């Protein structure tokens, strides 16, 4: 069976959802004729036509605003951000319009804003951001950030079918670097459920997106040293699967949180607070975190390598915590 890349998995999810539901349509910059900056929407215009695959002006606020309006008509628009950094331009439409819509006046806004996020590709300060926490802090949104091709496809399909606005982040480093065989038959992955990628008894690493792979690599190395690491892939950041996390910490008694996002106000702080709150008695050590620096993402390779977490740093922190 063919190996499917993370990027192709996303493209398949779009094809399948558009195939089965004419209320799904796409909006974005250069997504139609060009097929998207990363080709995530290549071939969709040919199959679904101009009415359903809409090349828009460079107007992130306008596009997301229009998607909100389409969702009020019962459609399920999927908006592509050419780079997730640019989502800042549509912040108002996401956090004030879409996120509050159901709570404020009972109007569901079933839409997805998806696009490439994350660093490691020397994209510099405007093409590498991990903007998930702006949205994970916003009630009414769901925030998804898959780590595997299987999840990328299954979670995107669930996101499109969800009745709430979903911010769907795709890690561009993973787009063409990871591949796996996907089931022939249809499947979805539910939002709001973390998964244990690797069982272990000595400590838990909670992480998501590209850092799942760095954490798995670190866990392999630690296993050779006799340290058994459990790796939990959060998959959805909002709503957060507290049960899976707490259950893992209950088994391992130690928690390291790893993310590529910057440190202050990152997901690790929230998880640390929650686990300290619910699982203090389970803990045999401090909750530690490995994250990027509190700086914008720098361009030059040595700078970016210094900025980003990696398997070495994760292994070092995990080793330290295991010994604690």
């Amino acid at each position: 069976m063919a190996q499917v890349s993370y990027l192709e998995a996303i493209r398949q999810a779009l094809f399948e959802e558009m195939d089965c539901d004419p209320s799904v349509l796409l909006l974005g910059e250069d997504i139609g004729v060009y097929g998207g900056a990363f080709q995530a929407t290549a071939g969709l215009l040919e199959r679904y036509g101009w009415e359903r695959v809409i090349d828009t002006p460079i107007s992130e606020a306008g596009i997301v605003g229009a998607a909100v309006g389409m969702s009020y008509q019962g459609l399920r628009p999927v908006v592509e951000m050419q780079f997730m950094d640019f989502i800042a331009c549509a912040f108002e439409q996401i956090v004030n319009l879409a996120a509050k819509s159901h709570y404020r006046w009972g109007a569901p806004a079933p839409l997805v804003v998806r696009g490439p996020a994350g660093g490691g590709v020397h994209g510099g300060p405007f093409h590498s951001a991990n903007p998930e926490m702006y949205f994970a802090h916003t009630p009414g949104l769901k925030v998804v950030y898959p780590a595997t091709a299987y999840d990328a496809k299954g979670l995107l399909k669930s996101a499109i079918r969800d009745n709430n606005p979903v911010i769907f982040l795709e890690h561009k480093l993973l787009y063409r670097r990871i591949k796996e065989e996907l089931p022939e038959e249809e499947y979805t992955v539910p939002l709001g459920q973390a998964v244990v990628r690797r069982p272990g008894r000595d400590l838990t690493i909670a992480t998501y997106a590209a850092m799942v792979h760095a954490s798995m690599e670190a866990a392999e190395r630690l296993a050779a040293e006799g340290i058994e690491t459990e790796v939990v892939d959060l998959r959805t950041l909002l709503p957060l699967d507290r049960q899976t996390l707490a259950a893992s910490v209950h088994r391992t008694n130690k928690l390291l949180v790893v993310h590529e996002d910057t440190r202050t106000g990152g997901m690790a702080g929230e998880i640390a607070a929650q686990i300290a709150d619910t699982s203090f008695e389970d803990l045999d050590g401090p909750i530690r975190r490995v994250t990027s620096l509190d700086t914008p993402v720098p361009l030059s390779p040595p700078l970016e390598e210094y900025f980003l977490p990696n398997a070495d740093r994760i292994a070092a922190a995990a080793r330290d915590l295991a010994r604690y």
Partner: protein
Amino acid sequence: MSTTLTREQSLEVYYYLRLNRSLEELLVRLFRQNKIFGGVYGSLGQEAISVGAAYALDPGDWIAPMIRNIGALLVHGFRPRDILTQHMARAASPTLGKEGTSHMGDLQKRHVVAPTSVLGDLIPVMTGVAMAGRYLGQKIVAMTWIGDGGTSTGAFHEGMNLAAVQQAPLIVIVENNQWAYSTPVSRQVPLRDLADRARAYGISSMTVEGNDVVAVMDTVREAVAQARQGRGPVLVEAKTMRMVGHAQHDSAAYVPREMLAYWKTRDPLDLYESHLTRNGLWDEATRKEIETRVQRELSDDLAFAEDAPFPAGESAEQGVYCQGCHTIEPMWQRPKEELTPPRSGVQAAWAIEDFGDTKSPPAAPDSLPGKTRR
């Protein structure tokens, strides 16, 4: 004058104008009694734009009022009790006490998108409603209102531009009431006529005396007809004057008294009453009848609102997500089959005037994983 309204319709327009004004007078009284949460944003002197523009629409059309368009909410079927319970933050309000002022909507029946506090936002939203309407095969137009100040926002520009390139059936009423809070229009926009904003988008525009409800209805009806025919969005500037402060807390001392005195002579209810009298459309008995009806409805609905309980505190936790509480199904008015594969003849190429087609990129994957359905 309009020749398209029946006598009954002409009187109905008066009913809405009177109801709009009397309801707001009641809200001001309640505000002074500390019974209002969230402020009262009056439309005194601007009622003709809310009522006239909304009245020019057909059933099924969509509106997104802004905060001063209580009249449009009334025309689209909201009742004084909705507006009173909402301002008084009761559990029976259309938003269950979650929202205040005129921030209410109804997607299913009334096709009203709730006003928001962030100005300009509703232009792209209604562009999306209009685009969706066309996609679904509906013959609707989408209308929204914005003030002189709101036309300077980025969302206004992005929405107008998107609507224009999409030729979406969108009507934007620019309600030029001369003041954005305390800042006069001359300090916001370097244009004498805000209708000229339309030139930047290559769309048509109209200007109307906003205090003349008959003129508003006639002009907006023409704009609606254009948009419904597929000739793209229309911007209508309605010139008017905000006769009260930005909201009840604001004495508007910055407004020259002479300006208020001038516009007082152009009061929309006075103008319309003269129109009805001049054209023999009513007599004193009819006027009294409408006045009595309005007062009765307001007093009934006020009693309802005063008796309505506040929401239970713990209901604050409810409704963040839609969790199966709504069935989401678009109102299709064209065969879905037109939009589902296999399609033929779609080429991924831009047709560029004078230069022909560009070449097409890659095709769809030849095999899709198992067919899916919901």
